[in-house]
């Protein structure tokens, strides 16, 4: 019997082929657009997160509990090297590195600029940050070497220094003492992230601790997860273990870079506003079509009811018709959407002005949408749901149908 309903539903659809195609067309249009723009969104969010986090801040950091709000030298983590080593053994991963951070005024022969100076563990730093790999001239720091410094490209240009030149820096140390040193520029990195290129410099942690009187302390232990999905499980295992170790705060990347999560949220909100408008318009289209098709068939339905069909069965028929229409829109829409997106994910695309915008969010100047099951299904799935919801009203109207009156209807 089920088969009969299905066949009836299918044939009913093609009684007005043009109307059905127009309704399905609205779905295909929206689905294609949704597949494309959701894939694009997901792709660019992933890229934004990865590019911003991998460059420097890492996925998770362990810090003094007050350091996040007030990044001051005195909120330090004691015996930071041993602590980082302990974590590496305990978690069985090597992408964990200790850092210390200070501010100093650096002077070359000609120029002076304020900079952020980071003491890093040269052995492990390349595993948590892409910056060491982005050294374009010279080389990265050698482990244990003292009086070596790696600086950003814009900073190097502003200071007018080259590889091999000397820099003098002065700042204040942990105990408010005067911290000063003379270092040789061994490498210049170019990350494309203007904040880093403009104002950051790195020296070896041991040397930093000596100059700034840190006594073996540092400010953060940086952890880079293999995948962004690994961050949350890692967080929970860390908060269990470190809660027992004295009070260190475990910081998730969205605390370290709150702007990133919020920029994504803001973008999501405005994008979903647009998607919902599209989905509502499709739902209206379906409502129109199905309501009209129910009204047209009043006589026919009256006859069917007189023959003994229950209104519920007729309602199912309407829902089935809608379901078939939706299915058609879904398959064709996803198909076209996947083709279009797949093509653009290979060749990439760009529009005038995009390069300037992308730069603000650490994105390349061509966008490559990434297709995933979720990005294919999500939008069209909601369109289908909206369409089925829209068909409920016409279907329920059938309950009010009285066979005799209905058969007399025009």
């Amino acid at each position, binding site marked *: 019997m089920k088969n009969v309903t299905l066949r009836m539903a299918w044939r009913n659809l093609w009684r007005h082929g*043009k109307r059905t195609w127009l309704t399905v067309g609205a779905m295909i249009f929206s689905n294609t657009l949704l597949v494309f723009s959701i894939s694009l969104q997901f792709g660019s969010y992933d890229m934004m997160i990865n590019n911003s986090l991998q460059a420097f801040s890492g996925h998770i950091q362990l810090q003094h509990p007050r350091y996040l709000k007030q990044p*001051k030298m005195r909120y330090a983590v004691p015996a930071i090297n041993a602590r980082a080593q302990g974590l590496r053994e305990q978690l069985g991963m090597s992408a964990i590195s200790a850092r210390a951070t200070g*501010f100093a005024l650096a002077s070359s022969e000609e120029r002076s600029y304020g900079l952020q100076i980071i003491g890093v563990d040269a052995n492990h730093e390349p595993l948590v940050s892409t910056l060491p790999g982005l050294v374009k001239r010279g080389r990265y720091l050698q482990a244990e070497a003292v009086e070596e410094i790696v600086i950003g490209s814009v900073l190097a*240009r*502003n200071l007018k220094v080259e590889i091999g030149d000397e820099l003098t820096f002065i700042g204040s140390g942990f105990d408010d003492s005067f911290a000063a040193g003379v270092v040789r520029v061994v490498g210049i990195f170019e990350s494309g992230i203007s904040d880093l290129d403009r104002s950051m410099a790195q020296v070896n942690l041991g040397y930093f601790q000596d100059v700034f009187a840190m006594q073996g302390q540092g400010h953060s232990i940086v952890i880079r997860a293999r995948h962004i999905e690994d961050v949350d499980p890692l967080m929970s295992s860390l908060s269990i273990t470190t809660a027992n170790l004295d009070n260190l705060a475990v910081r998730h990347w969205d605390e370290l870079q709150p702007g990133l999560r919020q920029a994504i949220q803001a973008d999501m909100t405005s994008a979903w506003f647009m998607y919902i408008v599209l989905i509502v*318009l499709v739902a*209206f289209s379906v409502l129109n079509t199905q309501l009209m098709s129910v009204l047209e068939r009043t006589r026919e339905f009256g006859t069917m009811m007189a023959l003994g069909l229950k209104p519920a069965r007729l309602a199912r028929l309407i829902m089935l018709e809608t379901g078939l229409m939706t299915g058609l829109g879904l398959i064709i829409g996803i198909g076209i959407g996947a083709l279009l997106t797949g093509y653009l994910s290979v060749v990439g695309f760009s529009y005038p002005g995009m390069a300037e915008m992308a730069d603000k969010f650490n994105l390349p100047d061509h966008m490559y949408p990434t297709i995933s099951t979720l990005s294919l299904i999500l939008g069209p799935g909601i369109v289908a749901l909206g369409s089925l919801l829209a068909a409920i009203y016409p279907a329920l109207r059938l309950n009010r149908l009285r066979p005799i009156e209905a058969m007399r209807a025009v």
Partner: protein
Amino acid sequence: MAVFRLNFNTLLTLSWRNLWRNYRRTGIMLGAIAIGVWAMIFMTALMRGMVDDMLNQGIRNLPGHIQIQHPDFLDDPNVVNSIAEPSGELLLVLKQSGTKRWATRIKVAAVIASERETRGINLLGIEPDAEADISGLPALISEGRFLETNQDKGIVIGAKLAERLETRLGKRVVVMSQDPDNNLSERGFRIVGIYRAKMPGLEEFNVYTARDTLQQLLHIEGRVSQIILVDEDYREIEPLYEKISQATPPGLDTRTWYQIDSYLAAMFNMMDGFVLVWVVIIFLALSFGLVNTLVMAIFERIREIGLIQALGMRPALIVYQILLESLLLLLIGLAIGNSLAVATVKPLESGLDISIVAEGMAMMGVSSMLYPNLTLYDMVLANSVVIILGILTSILPAWRAASLDPVRALNTN
């Protein structure tokens, strides 16, 4: 055969009545058009508001609509790339030209130290009088006072920097920077004012002193980094730019805001395109329903159309009648959609608090209050797109209805 003549009024009545023969279908379609038009205008007003804010903030941070500086200054903002204070013809033009607002300023990298902390900053030496129009800073002072004269000995810092430095109003800080000979100059300043910027990031970096005081500190008497001009409207600065760049002595670089900040320029240029794309996408989603409605309305009336054709109504009139029907539908939908949009945007014009994503918005260069901007241009654009494209998509069904063969049409059931 007598030609069936109809005047416009009759045609209008016919269309109007046809529209309400199937009030449910018309109602649903009106709903769809109204929602679509509402979404077009509402979303556009929000986007405009956001981009306007981005541009205003961005231009205030540059600052100014036009800057005159040493050709190397933008690349290398160092004290050695300074210029002489304006004189001669340039000074004359600055004073005479349409601008009401111009000032010189010094901008150098510096280090600021309190008793507890040291930070790298952007040190600005300004002429306090003009600052209200250039950066709007005086209005942002939350504690203490703004700088008063070009010789003021005080310093104004951001609230966030004060927190970082663990200092407060009335305390002293030491500022260090290099002079043109790369000697370190330093000097103590008393904090006379603290400001709160709309963009949290700036509070930490921009520190303000009086111009002459800073000239003394850096040993650059009579020299400045930039000359800043503000025109009435940042959109129309070409005439002023022409005049200024002609008067600028050779060796100096005159630039407009959009030449300096390519991100702002890109946003400014892309905005109209964004609006158009959004309006057209919504229209396309609507158009399926519109065509559907017309096709069905015609389908139901095939016999009727055949009959009036047989009675002598010219095909052109049938096309007109159907187009008029479509136009009426669109106009009513637009009226509802426009009123909805105005009704929803107006209450929001006092500002929409989006501080929940403040730091994300700051990345885009937007502050945490969003002021929707409903412009006539956008409303006209949305309405014309709907009417023009709406009529265009109606032509095909209408033309097909008019080219029916009356004999066949009359015999369909």
